[in-house]
């Protein structure tokens, strides 16, 4: 457990020291949100209706950039081998990395949401608590398998291509659930459907966070 907290602290510190990278990610996400507006035209009703989808596509796209760099420091100059020789359990390493990635992705979501609200003219009736639950579980759904795939592709020459190729098909269920959940949190949930989408996200998160913890050791052994 101590290893987990030390590694988490280290990863968050690295994230904080490289905050210019986070600013870059927020700018990247902003550009994507603007692109959707330009691509679909100025029909504000259509843009408002699909705002949740644009937000999640922007988050998914930005998350691949975030994840691709999460093992960069470890792969440089044999740092990963050093870490494992301490010895640090691969499970602690996975959960620390995934939690740090989750914190950074949530930061990105918090930064992009007000912009989404302004650009797509989201109006009252937003439930902040429900929105927070969907965004947290949805982001966990992206970083759970994403962290494992980031470790898997970190040492490949074609990592920029391989990470989204492996990750995108896999995270379609949490992205769909997050989009539906966000829509319900933004516009109201008279039929009580949000619980089923949150349950789907929770099951997906539990499954992939468990698999990630078990399987990272097998990836690092190589």
């Amino acid at each position: 457990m101590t290893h987990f907290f030390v590694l988490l602290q280290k990863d968050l510190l690295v994230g904080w020291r490289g905050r210019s990278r986070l600013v870059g990610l927020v700018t990247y996400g902003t550009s994507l949100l603007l692109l959707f507006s330009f691509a679909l035209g100025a029909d504000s009703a259509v843009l408002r209706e699909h705002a949740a989808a644009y937000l999640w596509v922007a988050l998914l796209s930005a998350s691949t950039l975030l994840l691709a760099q999460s093992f960069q420091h470890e792969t440089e100059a044999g740092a990963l081998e050093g870490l494992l020789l301490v010895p640090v359990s691969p499970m602690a390493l996975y959960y620390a990395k995934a939690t740090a990635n989750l914190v950074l992705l949530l930061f990105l979501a918090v930064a992009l949401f007000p912009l989404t609200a302004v650009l797509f003219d989201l109006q009252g009736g937003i439930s902040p608590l429900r929105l927070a639950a969907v965004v947290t579980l949805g982001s966990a759904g992206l970083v759970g398998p994403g962290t494992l795939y980031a470790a898997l592709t970190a040492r490949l020459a074609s990592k920029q291509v391989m990470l989204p190729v492996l990750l995108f098909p896999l995270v379609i269920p949490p992205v769909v659930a997050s989009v539906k959940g966000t829509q319900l949190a933004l516009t109201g949930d008279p039929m009580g459907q949000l619980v089923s989408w949150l349950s789907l996200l929770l099951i997906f998160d539990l499954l992939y966070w468990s698999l990630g913890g078990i399987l990272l050791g097998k990836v690092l052994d190589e």
Partner: protein
Amino acid sequence: MNKTLLLGALGVLVMLVGHGIGLFYAPPEAYMGDTGRILYVHVPTAWVGMLALTAAFAMAVGALWNGKAIWDSYMEASIEVGVVFSAMLLAQGSIWAKPTWNTWWTWDPRLTTSAIMVVAFIGVLLLRGAVHSPSRRMAFSAVATIIAFVDVPVVYFSVEWWETTHQGFSGRDNVDAVMRFPLLVSLAGTTLLGLAFIKARQRIAWARHLEEERAPDLPETPAPLSLPDPSNQKENLG
């Protein structure tokens, strides 16, 4: 005669018998008419696709915990055959959907989850191509296969879990005996053919493994280009 070839030839023969009965002797489907005869091709294709990907998952677990290259070669063969059959499944479904649903594609849960499954496993095959070290390739693709396999039961149960325009499970309750017989014969023939494909593809993977054992591992990242040292030029020319 080669056993794999014999298995494949037997598979083709049995499959043709099943398809022949299904096409020429079985009655047309009550609602879809002759279009419903896709049953004898589509269901066996889906079955072999799922079977191959499930076998790939089992081989991946074996490869990861056992570390023997033979598991890896079967995993590679099973994924490739599973992807080919599942892609054929999507193509057949599209051809059937046009006259029946009046569209090539619809975002139905069964169709969508099947498409995700095919793309996820194509990703695993691409990953295998991107990793040069055999032991690393085995571990990485086994992990990716285990992760991607989670979609396979989702595809299978999608007709139960969600409201869908796709037909439910085909079985004793909803397929008449006169149609069930050619379906089972086609299923047996396609399974034999699928197994022959897996065995034949595994042989190629195993041959490459033996070849790689004789050759040293290549680095994952190409070494940086080094320019010739100008100070040595005279020596080289001399």
